[in-house]
């Protein structure tokens, strides 16, 4: 069986339907999840309090979306809100968040508007 392979590329959001791959809605490139800002659906925002963080990297280890941002010196500097999906795993694992004093927490969800209902 001969395989005739055609590969498509990532399509810009301004593309007309005529510019889309004729072979259908496949993704034929790797390493492209960065290009999709799936974090803009989240119902509540995750805030990072740098002064409470002990730089343990546990949040980085559990984040399924690679949305924990470190600087080049290995300091946790914040959340990539373009890609954070609000799963809350970092919030759960963060040792700073175990402090009974919520003022000392490092990863805190803003109030969810749904809590009002």
């Amino acid at each position, binding site marked *: *069986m*001969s*395989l*005739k*392979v*055609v*590969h*498509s590329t990532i*399509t810009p*959001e301004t*593309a*007309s*339907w*005529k510019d*889309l*791959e*004729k*072979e*259908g*809605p*496949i*993704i*034929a490139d*790797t390493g492209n999840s960065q290009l999709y800002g799936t974090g803009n659906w989240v119902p509540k925002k995750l805030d990072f309090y740098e002064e409470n963080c002990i730089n343990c990297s546990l949040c980085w280890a559990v984040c399924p979306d690679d949305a924990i941002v470190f600087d080049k010196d290995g300091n946790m500097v914040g959340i990539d809100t373009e890609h954070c999906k609000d799963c809350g795993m970092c919030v759960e694992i963060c040792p700073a968040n175990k402090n009974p004093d919520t003022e000392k927490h490092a990863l805190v969800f803003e109030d969810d508007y749904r809590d009002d209902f």
Partner: protein
Amino acid sequence: MPKITKRTEKTLDGNHAAAEALRQIHPDVFGFYPITPTSYIGEKFAKYVADGEVDTEYVCAESEHAAMSICVGASAAGSRAVTATASQGLILMSEVLYNASGMRLPIVLINGNRSLGAPLSIHCDHGDAMGVRDTGWIQLMAENAQEAYDFLLCAPRIAEDKEVRTPIMVCMDCFQTTHTLMNMVIESDKEVQKFVGEPIVVNPLLDIDNPVSYGNFDKPNFYMEHRRSQLEGLLNAESKTTEVFADLAKTFGRGSASLLDEYRTDEAELVVIVMCSTAGTLRKSIDKLREKGQKVGMVRLKMFRPFPTKTLRKVLSAFPKLLILDRMSPAGATFGALGSEISALFYHDDTPHPKIRNAIYGLGSRETHFEDFVKIIEDFDQLPIEPKWINLRED
């Protein structure tokens, strides 16, 4: 059946003819779950596998939903995948049918047009095929075993074309075609394989050096564009089918490039529009009426999806009266599927349009004889605007 080395005349039913076509096409994967009337296709093909006639991966599924899912996976992986089903099976597949067309997988399906339950019926009508008419599949409607065989030889070429990339179903009537013997021609294996050609595989999942991802999520910013792009592939199937039909006629000397089969339509004042096996009965009705000097003819559609809109508009606008036969309940619509589609062809501009009447016939294989069609054609001017149910006990 052992390998066929030269063009042979055989007496086969539609199922056997379809199984022969599949043996010759030699697909990579056959995902199957049995159902009347097309179980025999799977059984026959299983024997070919057991006898070593083909080395197709024959997968026994636990349902039709699974059988079509197997085809989706196999096709995305980069193989030529086929299945056969009917009725409840086709409807159970329907969720996956949408996925197959949306992912642009050129799967080939054979359907034995069978009525739907409840009440349970194993007999013929077009309720199943028409029920999935908007799943984005190409639908070819075969009149008899020979045509089912011929359409199947064309099917992979149409579906796999770079401009089409759309799954295709070949529909033949339950029992009337699937189980009725016919003298027909089977071409040699070699000639068929030459005609069908190697599978055209695009972006296979098994090409691990070039990884791709199928069945992805679309946000509102792309969903409409992908749907429109998918439609273009389906619409392209019209000209591609004409091209492949023409090649079939040239290579094997059967059929024609046309998506329509016109019978005695010269100077016709009334034309009956029909699909599949009923055309045989209707030809006799038309002959009878022509003998009496009535100018009537028949147009049979070989393709229902994409609906051959432009061709039909051109051909049908020449006739003052159209009687459209639907083998399904309108189920609350103005007309049956064919009636609604044909009506929608007209009323776009000021040019005169034909007078249209819709008749429902043959549900669950209710007998409809050539005299019944003669009568309804003669009664055309007295028919109500609403669909007329032929041979329904009304009083």
